[in-house]
C-alpha cells in the first residue's frame, strides 16, 4: 500500500520513541498556558458554503474591549458584502491575531477571547508564542532558534525553555544584529530612533528592531532601504543558524563527521540487547486496524490529559488479559514464564539513547491515572532519573514510529520479553465496506515481533484480532 505520508498522525505521543530525538519538550511547554487559563479562540467563520478564506475588513472591537454574546466583533468580507460576525461568548477581546486587511482560512483563529480581564495578558503572551514557533518550521527544536532573531521582543515561552546547546548559535546571531551603532546627530547618541514612516512600517512587517539599524538617510535617519538591508542580513544569518540547527536533527548534538565515538553506557546496553536478541527465533505478524473510533475517543477525552500512548497501552493490556501467552516470555530456553502482571513498556527516544519506561498493571489502572503516570515517567526519563524498576519490569513492549509517517516497521525483540508491537501511522485509507461500497477509514498497521519458542502464530494472530476489536470499539478503555 503506498499512501502519502502524513507527518501528523492521530497518535500524538508526548514522547515519540524515535531514535535520538527529544522532540516533545517544547510541545508541552508551548501548550502549558492553554491548559491553565480559559482563553477561547475566535475563528474565521464560513459565511457561505464555498468560502475557504475570508478577509478581515475591520475590527469592530479593539483589544481590551468587553464582548457580550451576540455582539458584533469583526466585519468579514464575503463575496457579496461585508458581514458582521458576532461573538459566541461573553468576555474580553484579549488579542487580535489577524489584523484588518489580512486574510485567514476559514476555521483558523483570528482572535483570542479571555473570560476575565486578568486573562487578557495570558492571551497576549499566547499570541506572541503562537506566532513565534510558526517560524521555527522543521521539527520542534528546542525553542531559542535562530529565526527568533527577527523578533523585537523575546517571547516568555521561548525564554523559559532550556537551550540545548543549539542556542549558542542563535544567541550569537541575535547579539551581532543587535544595537548596531546608532551614532548620528538625529538620534542624540543612540537614545532615540529617527526613522521615516515607511521605514517604521517595513520594520514592523519584517520584524526588524529599528534600534539596530544604521540610518543612511538625511541626518542619519533610518530609511526604508536600511530596514530592508537589515532584514535580509538577519535572514541570511538566521537561515545559517536555522540550517545549522536543522542539521542537528539528522545528527546527535556534538557529532563530528569522520570521527570515531565510543558507545555511552546506555548505547552499549542497547547494542548488547540487540545482539542478544539474535539468539531468539522470532517471527512477525502484521495487522491493519481501523482507528476512527479510537481517534474520536481520543478527541473526546484528551482535554482530561489522556494521551494516545496511554490509550494504546490500555488497549494492548486489555487484549493481553485475554491472551496471557503473548504476555509470557522464555527466560531459560525451556519453559514458559507466565507473568502475573501486565506491564506495558513503551519505547521512548531520549537524548543519545533509547529507554522503555513501564506502565505497570496497565490492564488494571484507569486510563486517566495511566496518562498521568506516563507523563511522570517521560519527564523522569528525560531527566535521566528513571529507577530500574521503572524500566526493567516490562512484559510486553510497544514501539511507535507513527509520528514520523512510518506506516510499518519491524521492531527487534528486547531480551526477557515475549513480544514487541511496532505501531505505524494512522492514515486515511480507501476500503471496501461490507455492503459493497467504497469508504475512507483511518487505518494503522501494527506489526508484532514474537519469540516463537513461547508464542505461536495462531496465538499472535488471535491476540491481534482481539486488539483490533478493542481498538475499533473502544468503550472499555475509559474505565
Amino acid at each position, binding site marked *: 500500500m503506498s499512501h502519502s505520508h502524513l507527518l501528523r498522525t492521530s497518535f500524538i505521543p508526548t514522547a515519540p520513541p524515535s531514535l535520538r530525538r527529544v522532540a516533545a519538550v517544547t510541545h508541552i511547554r508551548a501548550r502549558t498556558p492553554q491548559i491553565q487559563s480559559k482563553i477561547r479562540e475566535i475563528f474565521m467563520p464560513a459565511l457561505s458554503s464555498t468560502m475557504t478564506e475570508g478577509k478581515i475588513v*475591520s475590527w469592530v472591537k479593539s483589544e481590551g474591549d468587553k464582548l457580550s454574546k451576540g455582539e458584533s466583533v469583526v466585519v468579514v*468580507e464575503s463575496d*457579496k458584502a*461585508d458581514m458582521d460576525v458576532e461573538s459566541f461568548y461573553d468576555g474580553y477581546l484579549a488579542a487580535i491575531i489577524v489584523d*484588518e486587511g489580512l486574510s485567514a482560512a476559514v476555521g483558523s483563529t483570528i482572535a483570542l477571547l479571555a473570560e476575565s480581564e486578568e486573562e487578557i495578558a495570558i492571551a497576549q503572551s499566547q499570541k506572541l508564542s503562537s506566532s513565534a514557533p510558526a517560524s521555527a518550521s522543521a521539527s520542534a527544536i528546542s525553542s531559542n532558534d535562530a529565526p527568533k532573531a527577527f523578533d523585537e521582543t523575546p517571547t516568555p515561552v521561548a525564554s523559559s525553555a532550556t537551550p540545548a546547546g543549539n542556542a549558542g548559535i542563535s544567541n550569537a546571531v541575535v547579539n551581532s544584529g543587535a544595537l548596531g551603532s546608532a551614532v548620528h546627530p538625529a538620534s542624540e547618541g543612540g537614545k532615540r530612533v529617527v526613522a521615516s*514612516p*515607511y521605514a517604521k*512600517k517595513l520594520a514592523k512587517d519584517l520584524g526588524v528592531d529599528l534600534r539596530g539599524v544604521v540610518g543612511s538617510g538625511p541626518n542619519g*535617519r533610518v530609511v526604508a532601504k536600511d530596514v530592508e538591508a537589515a532584514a535580509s542580513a538577519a535572514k541570511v544569518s538566521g537561515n545559517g543558524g536555522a540550517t545549522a540547527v536543522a542539521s542537528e536533527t539528522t545528527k546527535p548534538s556534538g557529532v563530528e563527521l569522520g570521527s570515531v565515538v565510543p558507545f555511552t553506557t546506555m548505547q552499549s546496553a542497547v547494542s548488547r540487547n540487540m545482539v542478544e536478541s539474535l539468539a531468539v527465533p522470532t517471527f512477525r505478524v502484521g495487522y491493519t486496524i481501523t482507528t476512527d473510533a479510537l481517534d474520536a475517543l481520543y478527541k473526546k477525552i484528551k482535554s482530561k490529559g489522556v494521551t494516545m500512548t496511554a490509550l494504546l497501552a490500555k488497549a494492548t493490556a486489555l487484549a493481553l488479559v485475554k491472551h496471557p501467552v503473548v504476555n509470557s516470555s522464555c527466560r531459560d530456553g525451556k519453559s514458559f514464564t507466565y507473568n502475573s502482571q501486565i506491564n506495558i513498556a513503551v519505547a521512548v527516544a531520549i537524548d543519545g539513547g533509547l529507554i522503555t519506561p513501564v506502565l505497570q498493571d496497565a490492564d488494571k489502572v484507569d486510563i486517566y491515572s495511566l496518562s498521568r503516570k506516563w507523563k511522570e515517567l517521560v519527564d523522569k526519563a528525560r531527566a535521566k532519573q528513571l529507577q530500574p524498576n521503572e524500566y526493567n519490569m516490562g512484559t510486553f513492549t510497544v514501539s511507535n514510529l507513527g509520528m514520523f509517517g512510518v506506516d510499518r516497521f519491524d521492531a527487534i525483540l528486547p531480551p526477557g520479553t515475549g513480544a514487541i508491537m511496532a505501531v505505524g501511522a494512522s492514515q486515511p485509507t480507501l476500503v471496501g465496506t461490507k455492503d459493497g461500497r467504497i469508504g475512507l477509514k483511518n487505518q494503522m498497521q501494527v506489526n508484532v515481533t514474537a519469540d516463537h519458542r513461547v508464542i505461536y502464530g495462531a496465538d499472535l494472530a488471535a491476540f491481534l484480532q482481539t486488539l483490533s476489536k478493542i481498538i475499533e470499539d473502544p468503550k472499555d478503555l475509559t474505565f
Partner: protein
Amino acid sequence: MFINTAMFLVRTPNGLKTAIIEGDVVGGTCVNRGCVPSKALLAVSGRMRELQNEHHMKSFGLQVAAAGYDRQGVADHANNLASKIRSNLTNSLKALGVDILTGVGTILGPQTLKYGKGGSGGTAITAKDIIIATGSVPLVPKGIEVDGKSVITSDHALKLEYVPDWIAIVGSGYIGLEFSDVYTALGSEVTFIEALDQLMPGFDPEIGKLAQRVLINPRKIDYHTGVFASKITPAKDGKPVQIELIDAKTKEPKDVLEVDAALIATGRAPFTQGLGLENINVQTQRGFIPVDERMRVIDANGKLVPRLYCIGDANGKMMLAHAASAQGISVVEQVSGKDHVLNHLSIPAACFTHPEISMVGLTEPQAREKAEKEGFEVSVAKTSFKANTKALAENEGEGLAKLIYRPDNGEILGVHIFGLHAADLIHEASNAIAMGTRIQEIKFAVHAHPTLSEVLDELFKSAKVKVTSSPVAEPVSV
C-alpha cells in the same frame, strides 16, 4: 468672491449694479490658493498613483514602464490652471458689467465704505447693500514658525516648489488628507500630527475607519494622535525641521520629530481685520463675523446691521466654497425682494483623495444624538462598491456608501460615500435633502447601468421605510 454670485446678480430681472472691492487677486483663495490648484495637483497624484501601482495595472493586463514626474511640470499645471481660471473669471465679471475696484475695503458706516490702499486715504462710496466676503487665511497656531520653505502652509504647498522626502502634516482634516495624497503619490513619506484622539475627526467614524484603512495604512504614512505641535523650528544650517510634540491633554512633552518639511493644515482663520467693523459696532467672535440664518450681520448689541451681509469663510458657518456661493445666492434673493433661508444640511462636502470621500447631512453619531433628543428612530443602510459592476470593472471595488435615515417617514438624515467619484455621486443625495424628497419617493428612480450611481440606488432600495409613497403621476407611454 466666487463666480456664481456674480453671474446670478446680473441674471436677476432687476439687474442689480455690482462692484467688487478686491484687495489681492480676483478669485480669492479658491481660484488662487485653494480648490483650483489643489485639484490640479490631486489630478496629477491620482494618475501617478495609478500608474505606479503595478499590481493594479497588471490586473488589467497592462504594462507600464516606470512612471516618473517632472516637478516643475506638475507645478506649472497647477499654476497655469489658476491663472487661466482667474482671467476667465475677470473677463466674465467685466462682461457682466461688474466694476472691479482694487484696494482694501473698509466699512465706514451703514451703507458707506471706502476702498484704497488702507490707512487713512481711499475713495469713499455708498452702496444699497454690502456683502462682506473676505474669506480666510491658513491658521498658524502659536509656537509654529512658518518660513515658506521648510515650514509651509497650503498657500506655499500649492506652488509645489519642492517635494520633500519626509513631510509632517499638522492636522488630519480634509486639507491635510488631500495633501498627504499628493505628497505620497509624488514619493514623499508623511507623518500626521493630530490633536484629537483619532485621525480625520470630522468624518463619520465608520467612513473615517475605512478611509484610514485605505488612505493611510497601506501608504508611507504614520501618525501621532492626541498631540499638539507646540513648537516648530524651520530647517537651517543643515539641521532638519524640529517639531516638539506635547500631549494634547496633559501638555507634557511627548516627542521631538525631525523631518524635512512641515505643512500646517490646522484649519483656516477668518480674514476680518481692518474691515472697519468697529465703525458699525460689530464684534467678531474668534475672528468670525456673527450673522443670522439669512447671512445678515449682527452687531454687538444683538441687533441686525441694516443691509449688511457676510458670506463664506468670514462668517464661519460652513467653510466651503460652494457654501459661500450658496449663501451669496441666498443674499441676492433677499436683496431682490424674495426671502430665502439656506438649508445648510443640504450642502454636500467632498475630500478629493483617491478614492474620494463625500458627505451630506449628519454623521451617524450626530443623527443618533438628534434622534435621542427628538424621539425618533434612526436606521442605517450600507452598501459596498464591491457590489457595483462599474466599480469592479475599474478594479476600484474598495468603497462604502452609507445612508442614515428615519424609517418612520423616509427622511434622509445623512449620506456618506467613500469610493471612486464619491464627490460627484453625492449630489443625488444632497438634491434629495434640499428638496425634502423622501426615500420612498426616490427609490423608484432609475439609474443607468452600469454606472457608479447605482451605489446610491442600492442604498435607497435597501432602506426599510415604513411608509409607502403616494400614487405616481400619469405614466408616459413610449
